[in-house]
């Protein structure tokens, strides 16, 4: 049995929140650079250049990469041999509260009925998962909602098959147009149930960018969807070119014989994601 103090969790989440907003991970920067190198449209190339400059300024001066520092989405994988001293949920929320205050990050969380801002960016959305072992992993995804708003879910009939799945995803990205800040990352959840598909789509965004699904069959679908999206030619910020999406990540789960749930969670190019292990 390993004991983790709730104060350690708070400190870790605070650090994650602050650094995620200002320091893009190398996988995202590499993808933006690769996009810039293959871009032909001068305006799109300029915009990608601007994103590189933006990332440098953000990191150097610790200014958020984007003013939408998101609603916090926290993935917690807790080992069965870990004992948390104190209140785990409250420890995480406290870390978010402290990180957003001390990091001068935007507080973007409000009541859905009154639209009154909570003023602290809490509560974050927390997904807890029990796993074997004695590690506590915390993944943090501050989710901007310009892209989140472009997401969708459909319960397809099984007869639609993989062609139907691909069509839905491509159409979803096409309909989103310039709204979600392309080049986007497309998270797809396939299978399970209504809520499972949505969670798979979100979780797929935590995968290092462009790493294919380990199942070669699924990886092929990811690649096919990516090629189709980029042939649509909406491009960076909707200004044309070959970079509408940087990656498609698909996660699957067995589903009911009557069902084919597909969830699409769109993420902007300022794809902030960080993980820590305690």
């Amino acid at each position, binding site marked *: 049995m390993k004991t983790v103090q709730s104060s350690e969790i708070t400190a870790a989440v605070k650090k994650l929140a602050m650094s995620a907003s200002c320091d893009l991970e190398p996988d995202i*920067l590499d993808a933006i650079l690769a996009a810039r190198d293959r871009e032909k449209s001068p305006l799109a190339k300029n*915009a990608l250049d601007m994103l590189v*400059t933006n*990332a440098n300024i953000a*990191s150097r001066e610790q200014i958020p990469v*984007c*003013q939408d520092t998101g609603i916090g989405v926290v993935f917690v994988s807790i080992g069965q041999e870990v004992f948390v001293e104190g209140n785990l949920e409250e420890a995480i929320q406290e870390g978010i509260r402290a990180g957003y205050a001390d990091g001068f990050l935007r507080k973007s969380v409000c009541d859905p009925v009154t639209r009154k*801002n909570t003023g602290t960016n809490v509560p974050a959305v927390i997904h807890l998962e029990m796993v074997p072992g004695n590690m506590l992993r915390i993944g943090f995804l501050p989710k901007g909602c*310009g892209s989140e708003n472009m997401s969708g879910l459909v319960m397809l009939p099984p007869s639609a098959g993989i062609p139907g799945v691909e069509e839905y995803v491509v159409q979803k990205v096409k309909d989103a147009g310039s709204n979600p800040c392309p080049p986007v990352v497309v998270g797809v959840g396939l299978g399970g149930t209504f809520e499972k598909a949505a969670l798979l789509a979100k979780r797929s965004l935590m995968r290092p960018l462009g790493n294919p699904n380990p199942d070669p069959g699924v990886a092929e679908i990811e690649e096919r969807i990516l090629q189709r999206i980029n042939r649509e030619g909406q491009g960076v910020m909707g200004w044309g070119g070959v970079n509408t999406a940087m990656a498609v990540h698909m996660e699957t789960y067995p589903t009911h014989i009557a069902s084919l749930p597909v969830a699409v969670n769109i993420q902007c190019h300022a794809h902030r994601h960080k993980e820590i292990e305690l």
Partner: protein
Amino acid sequence: MDIEKHKPTSDKGFFENLKPVTIPFEEGILQTLKAGDLISLTGVLFTGRDQTHRRLVALLDEGRDLPVNLQGQLLYYVGPSPAKEGQVIGAAGPTTSYRMDAYTPRLLELGLKGTLGKGSRSMPVREAMIKHGAVYFATVGGAGALLSKSIIKSELVAFEDAGPEALFRFEVENFPAVVINDLEGNDYYEMVTAERLGVKYEKTI
């Protein structure tokens, strides 16, 4: 981060060869702007996003005065992150514009001449823009740190309790943008689509 590896191909990038535009708009300048033009904004603008718009329109519904005169002005859809000590403002890039579509025609009636955000506008907004002689610009989303460098002064005007959705007055210098909707009803996103499909661009409005 490896700054050298991530060096931009040009120090100026997007900021090169932009057409200068002063705000509030000078008489006759809007007629010269065409969809697809790259512009550089200098002067004074006001900010507003979802709750700001909701409140402005609520004031109008109640027959009350607005905290700002929007005549001839540019409204920037932004909810900035807070400024640290010594900063003018935190990150301050555009938010998605369609969420303001429900409110925009009312503000155009008051003489608002331009809006700035990202993403496309609804047909009713485009019709209202033509009717009232207004334009729509977009800038690069997700570049809030860089764009904040073009904001040289920030002042809170109204709705402080709305936090990032308060109404601010910004002084900007060489703020880069693209003309999306011009006075003739052209739409740059639709022009890009036509080019991609290899068809002649025709106005949809």
